[in-house]
C-alpha cells in the first residue's frame, strides 16, 4: 500500500525548535492542529451551554410574565457595567495575542495582566450581585421569597425557576472565567520568562480564543437575563 520516503519536509530550523513536539512535521502544522482542536473544544462548549439555553427558552415561553418580573429585579446597571468590562477584557486579550505574535514581550505581559484585572473586576461585580440576591432571598431553595417581585402562587414558583436558571447560567459562565483567569496569569508569567516568540505563541492564541468565547456567552446571557420586556 505504501512506499517509503524520507521525512524532513520541514525547514531545518523548524525541526530543532524546542517547542516542536516529536510527532509533528513542523511548527505551522502543530499550530494548525492546536487551532482546530481549540475550535472543536469551543463547539463542545456551545453544546454544554446549549442545554441551559434550551431550558431557558422553554420556561421563558411558558412563564413569560414571571420571567419579566424576575428579570426587572436584576441590577441592570451592574450587568451593563460588567458587559462593558468583559468586552474591554476581550480587547486587551486580543492585544495580548497581537503583541505576542510580534514578539513584544513587555507589551504581552502588560496586556495579559490587564485582562486578568478586568476579568477579576467582572467576577467581583458578579459576586456583589450574587450577594444582593442572597440578601433578598432570591436564591432558589427553601428560603426563596417572591414577595419583592410582586408575584404570588404559581408565578412565585415560576420566578424561582428564573432564578435557578440565572444562577446556573451565570454560575457556569463565571466558572469558565475562574478557570480562565489563572491560565492567563500563568501565560503572563511565561511571557515574562520569554517563552513566546513570533514562531511559537500558540498557548496565548488558544487562550485568547477561549476568552473570547466566554465573552460571547455573556453577550447572549446579558440580554436574555437582564433585558426581558424592558421595552414595556
Amino acid at each position, binding site marked *: 500500500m505504501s512506499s517509503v520516503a524520507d521525512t524532513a519536509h520541514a525547514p531545518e530550523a523548524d525541526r530543532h525548535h524546542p517547542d516542536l513536539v516529536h*510527532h509533528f512535521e513542523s511548527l505551522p502544522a502543530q499550530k494548525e492542529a492546536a487551532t482546530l482542536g481549540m475550535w472543536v473544544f469551543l463547539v463542545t462548549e456551545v453544546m454544554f451551554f446549549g442545554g*441551559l439555553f434550551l431550558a431557558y427558552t422553554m420556561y421563558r415561553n411558558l412563564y413569560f410574565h414571571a420571567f419579566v418580573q424576575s428579570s426587572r429585579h436584576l441590577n441592570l446597571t451592574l450587568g451593563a457595567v460588567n458587559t462593558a468590562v468583559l468586552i474591554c477584557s476581550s480587547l486587551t486579550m486580543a492585544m495580548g495575542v497581537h503583541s505576542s505574535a510580534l514578539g513584544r514581550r513587555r507589551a504581552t505581559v502588560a496586556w495579559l495582566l490587564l485582562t486578568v484585572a478586568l476579568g477579576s473586576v467582572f467576577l467581583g461585580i458578579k459576586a456583589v450581585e450574587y450577594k444582593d440576591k442572597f440578601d433578598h432571598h432570591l436564591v432558589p431553595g427553601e428560603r426563596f421569597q417572591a414577595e419583592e417581585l410582586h408575584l404570588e402562587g404559581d408565578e412565585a414558583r415560576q420566578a424561582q425557576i428564573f432564578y435557578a436558571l440565572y444562577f446556573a447560567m451565570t454560575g457556569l459562565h463565571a466558572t469558565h472565567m475562574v478557570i480562565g483567569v489563572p491560565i492567563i496569569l500563568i501565560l503572563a508569567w511565561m511571557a515574562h520568562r520569554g517563552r513566546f516568540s513570533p514562531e511559537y505563541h500558540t498557548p496565548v492564541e488558544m487562550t485568547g480564543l477561549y476568552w473570547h468565547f466566554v465573552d460571547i456567552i455573556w453577550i447572549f446571557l446579558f440580554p436574555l437575563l437582564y433585558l426581558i420586556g424592558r421595552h414595556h
Partner: protein
Amino acid sequence: MTTQIGPGESGPPRPPVPPALTEPPPPRVNYLNVAYGVKSWLLTTDHKRIALLYLAGVTLMFFLGGSFAVLIRLELVTPAGDLVQSETYNKLFTMHGIIMVFFFLIPSIPAVLGNFLIPLMIGARDLAFPRLNLASWYIYMIGAAFTIYTLVSGGVDTGWTFYTPYSTTYSNTHVIAAGLGIFITGFSSILTGLNFIVTIHRMRAPGLTWFRLPLFVWAHYATSLIFVLGTPVIAITLLTVVLERALHLGIYDPRLGGDPVLFQHLFWFYSHPAVYIMILPAMGVISEVVACFSRKRIFGYEVVAMSSLAIAVIGFFVWGHHMFISGQSTYAGLVFSLLSFLVAIPSAIKVFNWTATLYKGSVSYDTPMLYAIGFVGLFTIGGLTGIFLAALGLDVHVTDTYFVVAHFHYIMVGGAIMGYLGGIHFWWPKITGRLYPEMWARVAAVIVFAGFNLTFFPQFILGYLGMPRRYHAYPEEFQVLNVMSSAGASILGLGYLLPMIYLLWSMRYGPRASANPWPAKGLEWQTASPPITENFERQPVVTEEAYAYASEEEARVVERG
C-alpha cells in the same frame, strides 16, 4: 490460490515465499519493551500504551457490569422475587446499565482500538494531543472510581436513565455520586473525540486522501462528531440533575412548575446518539475484517463511508422515539417516527454492502470473520426490531417491555460487543506481537453467538407477550422463556471468559506474530508487530486506494506466471 495464512493454522506447509516478500526481522525495541515499570505506563503519552491502559479499564468494568447481569438472570430463573429484594434488584439493573453503557460500550472500541489504530492507519506518529489522550484515561478512571464508590456505598436505583422527578426528588440512593461519575467520564469521551477529529484532519500521511482512508477511520470520525456534539449535553443534563437534587432548583420538579419531560428530551438528545457511538466503531471494525477475509475491496466504499456520517447526523434527530408515551405531542411523535425510519437506511446500506463484498470473494472463516458474520446477522435483527419500535402504534404495545430490552441488546451486545471482540482478535497480533490459539478462539466465537441468541431471542417473545422490564417477579407462564434466557446467559458468560483466558495466555506463550499475519491491507500492517514507539521507521507515503486486495491477488497470479 486463496489459502489464508492465519494464526494457529495447521495444514500443508506454505509455499516458500519469494525473497522479495520476506520481511525484515522485527526491531528489538518496540513500544512494549522500550521501558518497564509502573511509571513508564502511568506517565506514558504513547497512544498504543494508553490504548492498553484503556483495555485494562474497560475489561475490568465489563466484568463488573457483567456480574450484575449474572445476578439479574439468576433472580429471573424463578417467577417469585426470591433471590434479591425489589430494591436490590432495581440497583442491580441500574448498575448494570450505567457500567455497561458509560464505562464499557462507549469507550470500548474508540478508546482501545481507535486509540491504538488511528495513528497507525493514517501513518502518523501519535494522536495530535498525546497528553490530552493520557488525561482522558485518568478522567475515565476518576469517573469509574465515582461509580465504584456509588456501588460500595449502597448503589443507585433510578435505572441508567435517571428519569426525573424520581432521580431528583424521591430516590433515596446515591444519585449524586452516580451522576457525577458519568459527568466526569463524559469529558474523557469529549477529549477522545476531539483528539480523533484533529488527528484525522491534520495528520494523515502524504497521499492518504479522505477517500483512501480505511472505513474504520471514517467510522471513528463519525463517532467523534457525536462525542463532541452529544456528550456536552449529557454533561449539562446530569449536572442539572445533581444541582436539582442538592439545591432543589425546580427545573425538573412539577411541584415548582418544572417539567420532568424536559429532562427526557435532554437525556435522549445525547443517549440516543450514544447508541451510534457504540455501533459505528463496531461497523468500522466489521468493514476492515470483511474486506480482509473476503480478499476484496469493500463494495461501494464511498457509500459505506458516507453512511457513517449520515448515521451520525440523522442520529441526532430521532431522540423523540424514546418518548412516544411520555406525553410528547402526536405531531412530534410522527416526525420522530419518520426520522427513525430514515436512520435505518444508512445502516441497511452498510449491511447490504458487506454482504455484497462477500459475493465472489475468497472468504475464509478465521475468528475475526466469525465475529463479523455474527455481527451482520445479529445487527440486522436488532435493526429490524428497531423499525418495529419506531412505528408509533406498535411501540405503545411494547414500550418498557422485554421486547425493547432484547432489541437494544441485539444492537449493543450482538452488535457492539461482537464487533469489539472481532476487532480485538483481528488486531491482537499487532497489539501484542503474539498469535492467539485459533481453535479456541473459533470455539469461543461460536459459544458467544449461540449463548447470545439463547439469552436474548426469548426476550423478544417475552416482551411481545407483555412482560415488563425492570421487575424482579413475573407471572408463572413466563418462566420457560426466562429459564431459557438465563441458561443462554451462562453460556454467553463462558464465551466471554474464554477469550479473557486464552488472550492472556497468548501474551506470554503464543507464537510470535509476523508484521502482517492475515495478510491484510492497511498501513497498520506495514509496520512491525508490535510496532515501535514512533509507529513507523520512516514516514509512509500512500499510493493506493484502501483495500486494494484485488490488485494484490492479480499480482500473485502474474508472479506465478
